[in-house]
Every structure is written in structure tokens, then in C-alpha cells.
């Protein structure tokens, strides 16, 4: 045996945690993960990544767990943090014993998943990555996402529905940690109405900065062109419990009008103040989100809204009821996942469909409700689905078991 080999064995004997240091980064990189950081110390292995390849919050995690499970040299407690837009979303802890039990078929996948520690609390783990180099950064990589849009409105006597079908491709890219840019243009394909929908126009055109604060606080500031013909700035704050059963949120927006009239895009001063506070409870057995919101809507009316949304895997179905300005409204919504479950890895530019697509039906579309513009709220994100960026631990665990 040569001297070098003797020295290596001796080194690993005293510092076993260094055995696979740096090797899991390349593994994750081969799987297409981005923003990868890896740390190994006596307390275990720490990995964080961002998943741009697998649809939804869970598939990528399942693949990575299975891939890591077969790594013979992974014998330490492992702390896995999933990032979204460079910010930590959920911590998955796997004990060394669980790796061994699963690897040697002493426990099933369901048991393995059941033993995972899933928590929103990531502060301590993220400190471990301080000073660690990020591999395979997301920044500057562009997704060209093609959003289909459909609107049906039953508000005219000469037609059953005023309908419009659009294609709204958007350039989406991460800028720096927590910052993202969305630039969407709406191309009308077909409609049977006359108005703004006849023109190629700006869709969501936003610059967003998100910050993960200690104690599970999350803040985001979005500036740009939103839905509902608004342009302005939106500030949102949320806090959730470690198990994400409870979430409290508040938002405030200062917006102006952004409309296309007679072929011209016109904007106004940002003069309208809107805001909301809400509380959400996640019921784990039925995978139900129950959310109550008190809101000052865009045009100054005050109201309250109750949403009940059930997660059926990646599909959601929801009901809502609201009252605003003395008028009641209600409806239902659904969102479904779009193909593909696994997308190509990102190079410079990638063309894809959105991960989810949904529709909402609301009963009120005309009369006084439309005249007074009641109950209007804008969106700052082109993906309208509650499954998008949904890292609730109970939900993640249940979905992992199915995969």
C-alpha cells in the first residue's frame, strides 16, 4: 500500500464527513438542479438546490431522495433545503439510520417518507451555507413560458359568451437572490368582442424582489404592470408556522390604471390604494386550504372573502364566497397541471408551458357589480394555481408517498 493511500485512509478515519464532500453537488447538477450549495460537517450533510426541471414542488424532491438513498457513502444525517427564486422554502431532514434502513429495504418508501422531518423552519440550516459557493446558478437563465389564456363572460344579450382566447408568452428569469423578472405580452388569437382584447398588449411586466426574513417571515415587493389593468407597486408580508398549518398575510398596493383604449396604451398616476389581510389554515387530512380575507379592493370598496380549496395531488378545486360594497359574489375555481412532468434542463433559453393552468368562475359579471367595479383584485404572478410554489409540509409528505 502506498503512502498516499495510507494517509487518505487515515484522514477519512478522523474526518468521515468529508468522505463525499462535493460529490452530491455534481449529482444534483447532473439532474438539472440549480443554485446548488453543499456543506459537510460533523453534524451532517447539508444540501440546498432549486429545481427547474420537475413539475411541482415534490417530484424533484422524490427523485433526489431516491438518488441519494442509493449513495452508499451517504451515512450522515442529511439536511435538504429546497429553494425557490434563491430563497429557502422547506427543510427535509433524513437521519442516517433512515438512509440505512431504506437502502437495505428494512423499511418501505412510505415508511421512509413518514420518518422525514419536514418543516418550514430553515433559519439554522441556511446559516450553515454561509460563505459556500453556489454552483450552477439560475441567474440569467431565461424561461420562455407560453401561457394559454381563455376568458368567457356572459354579460351580453347578443351572444352567449363574450369570449377571448389569447397566447401570452412570457420571459421569466431570475436576476439575483430573491429577484425575478417577468415580461409577458398578450397576443389575441380569437375573440367575439370589440375592445382591448383586439390588441397585442402588455401582460404581466414585473420586477419582483423577495426576502426571507428570520422566524418564517417572507416579504416581497413587486413593481410593474399587473392584471386587472393596473400598474404600480405591491408589497406583501407573510408569516407562517413551522408546519405551515397557519399562515398570516398582509399586502398593500399603490396602483394606477393601465389600459389599451382605441389602440393606445395609456397609464395614469398611481393613486389607488388597496390592501388585504388574511389568515389561512391548512387541514392535512383532506388537504384543504381555508382562507379568510378582509380587503380593500382596487376601486375602494371594502369586503371579505372566504376561500376553500382542496388539493387533489397537483390539481386543485376551490369554492369562494365574498361580499363587497354590499353586493355578494361567489364562484369556483380549478387548476390542473400541464405536461410535462419533467422538462429539459435549462441552458441559456428554454421554451416551456406553464406548470399549471387554471380558471375561476365568478357569478357576478355585470349590472351594478361591473358598474361600480366591485371586488377587483390584481394578480402579480402569471401562474394562477395554489399548487405553484406550495411547500406545505403536510402536502409534500402526502404527495411524496404517492410518488
Amino acid at each position, binding site marked *: 500500500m502506498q503512502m498516499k493511500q495510507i494517509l487518505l485512509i487515515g484522514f477519512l478515519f478522523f474526518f468521515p464527513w468529508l468522505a463525499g464532500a462535493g460529490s452530491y453537488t455534481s449529482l444534483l447538477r447532473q439532474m438539472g438542479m440549480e443554485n446548488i450549495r453543499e456543506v459537510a460537517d460533523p453534524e451532517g450533510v447539508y444540501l440546498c438546490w432549486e429545481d427547474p426541471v420537475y413539475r411541482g414542488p415534490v417530484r424533484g424532491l422524490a427523485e433526489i431522495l431516491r438518488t441519494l438513498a442509493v449513495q452508499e457513502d451517504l451515512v450522515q444525517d442529511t439536511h435538504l433545503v429546497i429553494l425557490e427564486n434563491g430563497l429557502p422554502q422547506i427543510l427535509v431532514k433524513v437521519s442516517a439510520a433512515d438512509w440505512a434502513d431504506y437502502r437495505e429495504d428494512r423499511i418501505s418508501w412510505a415508511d421512509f417518507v413518514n420518518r422525514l422531518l419536514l418543516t418550514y423552519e430553515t433559519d439554522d440550516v441556511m446559516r450553515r451555507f454561509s460563505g459556500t459557493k453556489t454552483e450552477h446558478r439560475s441567474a440569467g437563465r431565461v424561461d420562455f413560458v407560453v401561457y394559454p389564456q381563455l376568458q*368567457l363572460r356572459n354579460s*351580453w344579450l347578443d351572444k352567449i359568451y363574450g369570449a377571448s382566447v389569447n397566447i401570452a408568452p412570457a420571459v421569466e428569469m431570475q436576476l439575483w437572490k430573491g429577484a425575478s423578472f417577468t415580461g409577458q405580452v398578450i397576443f389575441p388569437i380569437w375573440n367575439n368582442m*370589440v375592445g*382591448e382584447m383586439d390588441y397585442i398588449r402588455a401582460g404581466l411586466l414585473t420586477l419582483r424582489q423577495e426576502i426571507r426574513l428570520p422566524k418564517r417571515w417572507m416579504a416581497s415587493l413587486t413593481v410593474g404592470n399587473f392584471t386587472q389593468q393596473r400598474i404600480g407597486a405591491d408589497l406583501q408580508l407573510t408569516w407562517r408556522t413551522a408546519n405551515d398549518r397557519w399562515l398570516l398575510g398582509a399586502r398593500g398596493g399603490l396602483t394606477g390604471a393601465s389600459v389599451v383604449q382605441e389602440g393606445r396604451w395609456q397609464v*395614469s398616476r398611481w*393613486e389607488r390604494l388597496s390592501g388585504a389581510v388574511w389568515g389561512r389554515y391548512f387541514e392535512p387530512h383532506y388537504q384543504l386550504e381555508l382562507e379568510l380575507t378582509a380587503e380593500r379592493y382596487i376601486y375602494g370598496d371594502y369586503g371579505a372573502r372566504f376561500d376553500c380549496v382542496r388539493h387533489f395531488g397537483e390539481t386543485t378545486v376551490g369554492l369562494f364566497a365574498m361580499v363587497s360594497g354590499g353586493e355578494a359574489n361567489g364562484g369556483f375555481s380549478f387548476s390542473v397541471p400541464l405536461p410535462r412532468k419533467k422538462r429539459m434542463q435549462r441552458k441559456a433559453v428554454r421554451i416551456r408551458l406553464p406548470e399549471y393552468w387554471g380558471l375561476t368562475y365568478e357569478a357576478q359579471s355585470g349590472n351594478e357589480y361591473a358598474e361600480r367595479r366591485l371586488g377587483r383584485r390584481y394578480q402579480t404572478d402569471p401562474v394562477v394555481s395554489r399548487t405553484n410554489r406550495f411547500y406545505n409540509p403536510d402536502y409534500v409528505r402526502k404527495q411524496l408517498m404517492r410518488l
Partner: protein
Amino acid sequence: MNKYLTGAFAFALLLSTSLSFTSCKDEDEVTQTPEQVETKIEAYVSGRVMEMGKPLADVTVAAGEITSTTDSEGNYTLAIGSAGDVTVTAYKDGYVAASSQVTVAESEILSLDFELTQQNESVTLSPDAELVLEEKRDEFTTLFFQPQSVTAATEVSITEYITRAEKDNMGALSVIYCTPDGQQFEQPVKIQVVRNTSSDLYFANMKHYVEENGTWKVESDMTVDPETGDYVGELDHFSSHAFGVEAQWGAKTATTEDGASQEFDNRGKLDAVKVPLTVESKNGWEVDGDLASIIRTALSGVSEADATELASELNRMIRNAKGSESSVSTQQVKLNEISISGDTKATVAVQHKISTSSMTVSVMFKGQPVSISVPVKVYNGVSMKVSYEYGSLTPEHSGGNIG
């Protein structure tokens, strides 16, 4: 390279969003609601003024203070405004004036044709001389003045003209306007009205009518001269005189024919607009069928000469009921501009109003009274109905929204 691209995107977005701060427009300026106006089509009277089948230009047609002058085609249009009863008079220097009382309605063009006759020159009636005065236009009526009819030399004239006597149930073979109006005669003036049919066929119960305050009333009976076969009677003063039989008009059957509709599309625009409206209107009347065939059917064995002559006489009776010669023409009626609300498409549907009724008169044929009914089809003008379609800014009811 990615860093520079990233920076460029961020700068561009910050610049564009900051530019919106510099917009000095109020939100109300940008998000205006479509201007609402009333689309109102007034009541109109239109038609032609003819003289012996040819258009008569420069005729003044008046309804109160509303006047119009016929063009080179003899066409005129009166914008009456609101619904109601009006008296329409057509007059021109040197012509016998004609008038008719009609009822107009909004969103309708009432068709009203006139036939004017140039007044014949007067001749001198001397106290000590007799005078035979034959009407020059149709040569149907002749007046015989005895000596001493007047106490001083008097300029007299008679002019055959067309009246509108349907409401008075008069089937007039001849209608004359005599001047000086109101002239009294010391001696009865003999009237002779030509009869061109054979002795087998004549009108029984010919009467002499006089117009009083716009209504034709029976003045006296006329007889058939056994020597000449013509209809004869007497008068003792000058006025408007008619010679004919009682004519019964049956109930009118109203029908419609679709005309060309017009669309004015102001959808997608906020401001109301005023648009010119030109509508095609049919004027006139015609016998609904072949008059000679109708006569041959009613009068079995009638000679061709008699059938032809009777057809001509029945035509005269109908023209003196309807106020114009038999002909149907099309007129492009230019209406006042109508207002269309913002974000609205207005369709003006035109329907030609047609009525059919029968004139029944009694003739003596081979010593037996026979009733002849002649169906007459009249184009009464058009009615217009405005329907609306709205653009995306103008919902009409609340039926729900999916999107």
C-alpha cells in the same frame, strides 16, 4: 455576459416603470366609461311631387313651419320630429295646391306623393254671351255657361287636378278646380263629363261633389245624357268640384318587406358619434293584379274596348283617392344624423310598410248593377328599428365570468 443582460433588463424595467410616475393623467381620464346618448330617429314624411307622370322640381312642401323644396327628381323630405298629426301641403306658383292630413310616428318615414296640376289660363265670361269651357288637361269635363250667368265680365278657369279622397269614400272620375273660387252664377252652369264606354256599361248613381273644409260632400246627382251618353249635371257656384260615384274601401291588410339594414359600429371607442343615415323608401301605389283581367272576370262578356276604358276610369278613381298617379318608385331619403353611444354597434333595420285594400264601385252592365272590387297595393313608407350590440366595456347583464 449574463450579468450585463440581467442588468440591462432590470434597468429597462426600472426606467419604464419610473416613467409611469411621470404620467400626469388622472385615472378617470384613462379609464373613461363609454359616452351614453339616446339614439333617436325622428318622424319623417317623404315622397315625390309629379306633374302628369313627370317629376316637378322647386315645389314647396310644408308641414307647418317645416318646409322642403323638391329636387330635380321631384323628391322631398320633411323632418317632422315627434309623432303626431300634421297637414302636409305642396304648392308652387301657377299650380293647384294639394294637401293631406297624415299621422306620423317616430322611427318612421311616411311616404306621401303629390300630383300637381298647372292652373289653366282663364277666359272671359261675358254677361250677354254663352261660353263652353273645356278642361284642357284631360279633356274630361266641360262646363256650359248660359248668357246672363254673370252680371259683369268675369275671368273664369277650370283645372283638372288630383285629389286625395279615399276617406270620403268618393270614386271621382274628374276633379276640377274652378276660379274665381266662390263665384255665384245667375244661371245654372251645365256640367258634362265624358263617358267613353258603350251603352252597355256606365256608372250608375254618378254624383256631383263639392269640397268643404277638406271634405268632399255630395252636392247633387248626375244623370246620363240620352243623346251623348255623357254624365251631366249642374252647378251654381265655383269651388272645387268632383264628379264620381260612391267607392267603398275595404279594411287594409298591412304587410312588410325587409329593406336594407345599416350598421354603425362604434364599439371599442369611448366617444359617442353622429352618423348620417340614408334609407331607401318605396313610394306610390299600384293595382295588385291586372286590372283588365279583374274587369273581365267581374263583367262576363264585356268588350275589349269597354274593359280598357273602364280600366282607365277605375284608375282615375283610385288616383283621386290616393292623391297620385299609379307608379312605384324608390327614393333615397337622407335623414338627420343619429347619435350612437360609445362602445356600441347600432343596426338600423328597415321594413317597407305595405298595405293592401280594395276599392269597390258599382257599375251598370247590360242593365244590371255589378260590383267591381279592385285591390290596391300602397307603399306607405318605412319603419326603422334600432338594435344594439355592445363592446367589452358595456356589459348588459350579469351572467358570470370564467377566466
